[in-house]
């Protein structure tokens, strides 16, 4: 009897394991096809001189030549520096403004829904639409912003064609569009902080700043880390705005890694070289992500 029970139990366990595996299979297959396959081929191509028009059959292995050319390339070095600087500034500004707005909206007694909807609008727009709208507003010739500055008697700028302003202009546009994302995530997190914790803090004599530092921040720490992680990965891949507004110029001051890869890899169809750049970028994003994930895990 006991032996029969053990056999039945083992059979049930095997069945459960098989069922679990069966349920996982569709996802695993999709992941393999959609993620692993392109990643492996990108890695493989990065060691070749593959040009799309010449075809993969005419490509030959060049080992680390693509990586060497990449790291020795002055334009790539400039693009990496621009990307890192842009990411740090954009994420810090977006997190700062997003948190401020989230705390402000959360503290409102009335009109939270309206504010939430209005604040979300920039994030709902496609990046290309945002870029084109800003390009019209910031046009050096007929843009409303320069006209307004002229009206006030202030100096006007050639925003996208001047090395002193192009980088910062794109930064402002990116921050403007992505602050709502940070706001939404942090606002949702703030909603879950129990009011009783604030009451207890107030009874203990905590002021507004102390409540924020010792009640609000610890409660939304996880969301802050997640938000920073998502924004870092997304900002690191910045492409549309740069491509539409400046094409990486003037003088490479707005060139990012993705813009560089597009110009020197995709546009010229040198997919071997482009793949090497894509692998380097993936590694950089992974390093950044692991740093944040570790912090979030505590």
């Amino acid at each position, binding site marked *: 009897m006991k032996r029969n029970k053990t056999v039945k139990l083992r059979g049930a366990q095997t069945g459960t394991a098989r069922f679990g595996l069966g349920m996982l299979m569709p996802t695993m297959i999709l992941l393999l096809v959609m993620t692993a396959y392109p990643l492996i081929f990108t890695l493989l191509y990065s060691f070749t001189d593959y040009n799309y028009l010449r075809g993969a059959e005419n490509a030959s292995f060049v080992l680390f030549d693509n990586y060497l050319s990449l790291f020795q390339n002055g334009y790539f070095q400039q693009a990496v520096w621009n990307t890192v600087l842009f990411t740090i500034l954009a994420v810090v500004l977006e997190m700062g403004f997003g948190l401020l707005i989230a705390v402000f909206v959360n503290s409102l007694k009335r009109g939270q829904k309206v504010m939430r909807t209005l604040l979300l609008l920039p994030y709902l727009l496609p990046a290309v639409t945002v870029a084109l709208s800003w390009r019209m507003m910031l046009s050096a010739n007929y843009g409303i912003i320069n006209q307004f500055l002229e009206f006030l008697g202030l100096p006007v700028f050639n925003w996208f064609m001047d090395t002193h302003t192009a980088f910062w202009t794109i930064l402002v546009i990116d921050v403007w569009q992505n602050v709502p994302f940070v706001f939404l995530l942090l606002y949702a997190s703030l909603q879950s902080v129990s009011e009783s914790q604030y009451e207890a803090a107030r009874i203990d004599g905590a002021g507004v700043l102390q409540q924020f530092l010792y009640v609000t921040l610890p409660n939304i720490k996880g969301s802050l880390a997640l938000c920073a992680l998502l924004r870092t990965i997304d900002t690191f891949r910045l492409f549309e705005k740069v491509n539409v507004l400046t094409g990486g110029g*003037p003088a490479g001051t707005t060139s990012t890694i993705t813009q560089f890869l597009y110009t020197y890899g995709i546009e*010229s169809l040198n997919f071997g070289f482009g793949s090497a750049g894509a692998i380097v970028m993936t590694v950089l994003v992974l390093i950044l992500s692991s740093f944040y994930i570790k912090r979030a895990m505590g």
Partner: protein
Amino acid sequence: MKKRPLALALALATAVSLTACGSSGGTSETGSGDSGSASGEPTKMTLILRGGAYGESLEASLPAFEEEHNVDIEVMLMSFDDLHTGIALDAVNDVGTYDLCMVDGSWMAEFTENGVLANLSELGYSFDNDIIPATTEICIVDDEIYLAPYYGNVTVMMYNKQLLADAGYTPEEIDSFADVQDIAQKTRAADPSKNGFLIRGGSADNILSDFLPHLVAHGGWVVDENNNPTVDTPEFKAAMEDYLALYNVGGTLDKDDIVASVTSGETAMAQIWPGWYTPTADGPADYITIPTKLTDDSEPLDAVALQGVWCIGIPDNAPHKELAVELLEYVMSPEVQLASIENDGVPCRYSCLTDPTVLETYPHLETVCGALKTGVYRPAIAEWTEFTNILGTEMDNIIQGTKTMDEALSYAQEQLEQLMAV
């Protein structure tokens, strides 16, 4: 018991969807010259064209062909870069998507070297004497025709009528680059808020393309007869000095801003492509051919303006090749080319550009005709896209002052030599 069939069904569904995705590319129609299918359904053709007046003028001529041949034509209008990538990405398929494509002359070497375009001579197409010979130069490789010049795009010098008069010039008097420099300097001197001359920024290709006529006028070129780069040269530096002098009394803007600035009277002169602006008799701006002399005392050169003719060709893997040849012959016919002018088209035919009734309404086409006859194409080298990225970026560094001319040109020369040596 119910779990296993469920897991199997899910796995089967995944396999079926993946198979369906994988097989979708193999169902394309094979090449046929027949118009319409046996059931009377119209044949589907797809065209990939340059956006703006270049492609739109061609698109406007299609309804008559669609009706006559029982075809349904889908037109995809793309930006410069997307058009290049779109044609190239489709070129590796056994049966492609596009029946007709618009091609920039600078891609010609790359495309013919890799068998992207069909040999039009083999398909029975030939040029007639009405087509301006200079515009066909890039279309022929080893006496075989691969492209037909559809849109006569060639750089011209746009000017503001009032500012030109204020500088003491008439359009006919501008026959040298020294005159352009003089007008630009006088405009800025008269009013520091005005631009004497605008150059186009935005991409390496824009910067380099606009500069090439200035380089030609100084007796330089970007490659020698063996396609070795020649950018760190006295001619290049002299041309760049003059170009910087123009930039210093103007600025750099994108194309929409350039046109708006000249028409609004903020800028005296700028180099443009005819597709950007159609002058009218009572409009504030017009254009002239780019001068062929460096100074008033210099000997005039044969060709200075840059040819950017938008050509049409048939991909070698076009799904309906014979029908595509008919379409190409149709859009290149004198009647259709003439009618395209109404849609901002610029034909490459003498008969259209010198037609007295056309010139009554569009007098600027006489200027375009003159420029097309003497234009110079970018070098026909397969590496042109990379070449232009490197040189344009270094020129931008000089213009923006982030590198000295010697530093930038020596770096560009080194990089270009490496590129051409591969």
